[in-house]
């Protein structure tokens, strides 16, 4: 990826993604945190487009930015005001250390490893290819995923049922 537009796009998107994620961690108001989270999701979608995975990008927007964020604000709205604080537990410093260690490890692995030859061109069209793959090679996981979705739906319904 060497084009000026692509490089610029990468840095802008990377800033949005990571910056929004940091805001999620810092902001105290849960609804604002969800807004920042959506920013991060959208940034990831942009990165997907940059990685020539536009189908995934659209799915990312649809599921994460469109559905999961809505579910979250809904849950926030349905719990009372006192529960809308986004405070940390006492373990925050330990968590921070752990997270930093994890990030350091991952970055080290990413940069130190020799990844071999890299493809220069992205995919031409992935939507139909993914469709083909899902219904041929990965049909079993596909069915399992659908069963999982059904189970999750039933579970959610049972759990929040008024009894």
């Amino acid at each position, binding site marked *: 990826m060497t084009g000026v537009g692509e490089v610029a796009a990468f840095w802008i998107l990377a800033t949005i993604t990571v910056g929004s994620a940091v805001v999620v961690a810092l902001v105290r108001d849960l609804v604002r945190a969800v807004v920042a989270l959506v920013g991060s999701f959208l940034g990831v979608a942009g990165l997907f487009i940059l990685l020539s995975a536009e189908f995934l990008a659209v799915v990312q927007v649809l599921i994460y930015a469109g559905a999961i964020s*809505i579910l979250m604000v809904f849950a926030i709205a349905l719990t009372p005001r006192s529960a809308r604080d986004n405070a940390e537990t006492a373990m925050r410093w330990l968590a921070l250390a752990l997270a930093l260690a994890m990030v350091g490890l991952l970055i080290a692995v990413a940069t130190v490893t020799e990844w071999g030859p890299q493809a220069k061109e992205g995919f031409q069209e992935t939507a139909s290819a993914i469709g083909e793959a899902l219904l041929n090679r990965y049909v079993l996981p596909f069915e399992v995923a659908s069963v999982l979705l059904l189970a999750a739906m039933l579970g959610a319904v049972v759990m929040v049922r008024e009894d």
Partner: protein
Amino acid sequence: MTLLDSWWDLRDLGHAVAAFLEWLGDRGVPSWLPYLVSTLVGLMALLLWALLSQLFFIWAERRLLARIQVRLGPNRAGPFGLLQPVADALKVLSKEMITPRGADKVLFWLAPIGVVVPAIVALGVIPFGQRMVLADLNVGLLFIVAVSSTATLFVFLAGWGSANKYSLLGAMRSVAMLISYEVVQVLALLAVAVFVGSIRLGDIVSWQGRYNTWLIFLQPLGLLGFLIASSVEVNRTPSDIAEAESEIVAGYHTEYGGIRWGMFQMAEYIAGFVVAATVAVLWLGGWTLWGLEEWVPGWLIFLIKLYGVFFLFIWLRGTLPRLRIDQLMGFAWKFLLPLMLLNVLLAGLEMVVWKETEAPAEVVLPIWAVGNIAIGVGLVVGWALLMGHLRPRNRPARSLLVREVGQIYYRPLEEV
């Protein structure tokens, strides 16, 4: 990098752009400049069109509603009141923007922007003419749904950030409705995708052009579901319960004034245009009109179809009362969703049969058209009967006429 490549694929805005780019290329400018120029030109064109159309439709809606309601409508500013929307826009621009005490200022400020942006972005994949599209994504159909769905979050934020209980109620309602109707909307689109075999909007239009048919004949049920679901999504009467005036004042934008309110209004119109454009592309053949597109500019045909669909929304607004939220949700889950599922199944079966028999399209498509229209009508009527929409409880009665006072004719409704 298919997407990035297609960004500047805006050739039919006029050959001017293509010529200009060619000229730029001849000058040996850096490769990103044509990119930027074509994108900017396309964006400006889209915004200009959206704004002018919106101004025109504010006028048209008021005049048409006035016609429906046996009155005249705005007729003072300019010929036929045509300058009325301009005056309105100036008024809106010059009004004070009030931020209520206790509002979450960030969210309150962010929400109007967040509502408008998705509507405009969704316009980017709409093919206005054969090559007049900002970005003909190969996932165009999904893109429209995905981008439109993000607007709901900001509708919620508008209601949440306003520190107003009406706004909050409106926000909760809009979220509840989105969750219900997005499913219906996607299923209706899915049936079309099954028929055409592509979710690129350009492919869908050219498919209809190739077979000289419109999908409205092949997918009437899908169109019905999509129209209803979209009218809910863009919050227009009869399903504007998120901003139901007679109940919760103005719903999520109760506290907004000035240009922020104008942004919500703009978002409503542009989202309406996106829906109308989707209908025109998917079900009404886009820019094609049985060969006439050779003689008439494709975008003109397309815009006429788009405005026709939008007129339908105006007509509905002037005609129908509003359902209650639980009735609207029940309608989505109990009525539309099963029908849409059946519709997808039907479309799949028909395509399989077509593929297997390898019959010519001239034979198969008319059969499917007649069959689908019949099945559609039958399913709607049958399902309505099954759901008990014609039970005696719902059958309208006239009041009794009596001559003597003092008697009591009361009977509880349950006994009927």
